[in-house]
């Protein structure tokens, strides 16, 4: 008789397809990667094997069930779809100026013909991570996988196991990248339910400055799962603006883990939009790992129909004189559910921390629900920290005020909803981005129940 030693969790059927695909992945193209990358994958896989998918008993997943993801046997997307996605479709997703460097990934795989990168300042890299692993390992190795925590996220572990392609943005010391780097991730599951694991690494060396746009969308006939892991390192006195747009289609499941690490006197301004997916979850963590750090984290989410949108943020102040300002706003309609959990940790050394965190939700239908929980954990004594959350409906006295000036009720409701969301769009520094999101907001308003 022979016995096989298998970790008990590996036998769980819900993991079987991931395990099968990992074995295939390991035998095929993945083998060309450097040894350290293969080790990183093995580490990710080992963690994935040990852990269970979260349930609503887990504090971090209290209001979000991942059962709809777990029960679908998603296969690793390997094929580059042919002809399904017209080039014009991709073109239509870009905004801003034509000269912006852009990388396009279709089902997780870099598309050279759809991408265009030119006129980058000396030393700046905006390229496929797959290529960077081969061509610039010395720039990638010190950072990749060093910030995404595998210990508490099975999804980050899974993404690391299948790490293969994605985007790499590198800003050398003191260099300014004026044009935003636009990273477009498209999913098109045509024949079967598929999963992609886009990986993004942004490294801003000391004193550099740049903007990165992460733009996720899908056009698919089958369920698909986009499991994104993003690591951003902002060096001393460097500044990174980061926009993440989630506009998956109604077949899409989107789980994103974003880990930001800020060094002394650096600035990070993140903005997250959730407008798509049937289930979307962002885990966005920022570590202020140096004094005088400035961190802005803003977000806007729309949830309608049966959508479920979850934003978990965590900001950790470790050193003195840090600032963090966070505003998330949500518009929740139909039978949708929105979840917000925002944690701010102020460690003992982080004296003179100035932190403000707000979450506001506008509920447009009787069946929509919101669970919001801002959390403050302060271990320093000389700090200024405030937080708050609201969940409300349209203000009837404001509606009356507007109608009494001749504005019809549906238009008054639109105007108020617009005003509610516009407040957070006003924080966006990149003008073409604000214009784009304003248009998105207006289109959303037309489709929402306030327009009726």
């Amino acid at each position, binding site marked *: 008789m022979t016995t096989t030693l298998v970790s008990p969790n590996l036998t769980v059927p819900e993991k079987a397809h991931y395990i099968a695909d990992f074995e295939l992945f390991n035998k095929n193209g993945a083998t060309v990667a450097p040894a350290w990358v293969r080790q990183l994958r093995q580490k990710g896989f080992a963690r994935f094997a040990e852990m269970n998918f979260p349930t609503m008993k887990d504090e971090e997943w209290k209001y979000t069930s991942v059962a709809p993801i777990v029960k679908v046997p998603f296969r690793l997307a390997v094929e580059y779809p042919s002809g399904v996605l017209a080039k014009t479709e991709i073109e239509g997703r870009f905004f801003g100026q034509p000269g912006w460097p852009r990388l396009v990934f279709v089902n997780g795989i870099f598309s050279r013909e759809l991408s265009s990168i030119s006129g980058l300042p000396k030393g700046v890299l905006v390229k496929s991570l797959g290529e960077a692993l081969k061509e610039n390992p010395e720039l990638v190795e010190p950072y990749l996988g060093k910030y995404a925590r595998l210990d508490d996220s099975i999804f980050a572990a899974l993404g690391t196991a299948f790490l293969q392609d994605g985007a790499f943005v590198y800003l050398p010391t003191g260099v300014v990248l004026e044009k935003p780097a636009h990273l477009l991730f498209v999913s098109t599951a045509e024949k079967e339910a598929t999963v992609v694991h886009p990986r993004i690494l942004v490294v801003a060396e000391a004193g550099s400055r740049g903007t990165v746009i992460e733009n996720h969308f899908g056009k698919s006939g089958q369920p698909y799962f986009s499991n994104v892991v993003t690591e951003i390192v902002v060096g001393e006195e460097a500044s990174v603006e980061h926009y993440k747009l989630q506009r998956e289609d109604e077949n899409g499941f989107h789980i994103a883990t974003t880990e930001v690490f800020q060094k002394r006197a650096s600035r990070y301004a993140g903005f997250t939009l959730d407008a798509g997916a049937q289930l979307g979850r962002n885990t966005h963590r920022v570590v202020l790992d140096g004094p005088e750090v400035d961190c802005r984290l803003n977000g806007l989410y729309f949830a309608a129909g049966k959508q479920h949108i979850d934003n978990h943020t965590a900001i950790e102040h470790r050193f003195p004189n840090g600032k963090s300002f966070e505003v998330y706003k949500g518009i929740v309609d139909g039978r949708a559910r929105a979840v917000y959990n925002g944690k701010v940790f102020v460690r003992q050394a982080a004296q003179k921390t100035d932190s403000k965190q707000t979450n506001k939700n506008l509920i447009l239908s009787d069946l929509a629900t919101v669970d919001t929980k801002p959390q403050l954990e302060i271990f320093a004594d000389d700090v200024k920290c405030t937080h708050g959350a609201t969940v409300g409906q349209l203000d009837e006295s404001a509606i009356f005020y507007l109608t009494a000036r001749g504005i019809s009720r549906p238009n008054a409701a639109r105007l108020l909803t617009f005003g509610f969301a*516009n407040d957070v769009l006003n924080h966006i520094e990149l003008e073409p981005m604000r214009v784009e999101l304003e248009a998105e907001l207006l289109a959303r308003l037309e489709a929402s129940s306030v327009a009726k």
Partner: protein
Amino acid sequence: MLEIKNLRVAVGGKEILKGINLSVNAGEVHAVMGPNGSGKSTLAQVLAGHPTFQVIEGEVTYEGRNLLEMMPEDRAKEGVFMAFQYPVEIPGVSNAYFLRSAYNEIRKHRGEEELDAMEFLKLLRQRAKLMNIDESLLNRPVNEGFSGGEKKKNEVFQMAVLEPKLAILDETDSGLDIDALKVVAEGVNQLRRPERATVLITHYQRILNYITPDYVHVLVDGKIVRSGGKELALELEEKGYDWVREKEAVPAGA
């Protein structure tokens, strides 16, 4: 222009207006005075169409039409304007954008062409200058963070832009400094035309030094207990409301 007959109004089951009779003709200015809680704002809000108030009895005719059957926005489009005693804040919507929406809805209703952002801004700037309104207020969200006086001035500014036929000003003079008061009075006087009318709710005879009313009405406990000319305001200032309360109610109306 406006004919109110035996208007009785309740809120939350409590009767607040207990039979109001008032008739306002084009070209006239009527002042309505009365103690706190007597129902002045209730009257103003009912005329503007606030949904909280229930009309128990009576009728209101505006230019020959049943006003009570009209939606608030339709009243506004037909030229009714109520300056709120407590203007509401609208976060995220600029004063200019809000006013353009209102202005264009009214123009559309009249079959006139809508103004684009540039044309409207020109009009807005010109009115703002006239009303001594700081231009920065145009781009700020409606009433958000405005001082009490700024909110009141903003109401009159809206009136100057929308040019209503019937203006109902609910304590627009309260909380204004002397310069602002003059500006507000100026705004009302500019709209004083043969085809327009104003109902001015106020506690102070002070504003009546600048706007001479044709009639003064005293509202006590949901009824108009006395009506007269502008001298009535002076008399009230001197003798207080107990004086009218003691007297027998006289039939109101112009």
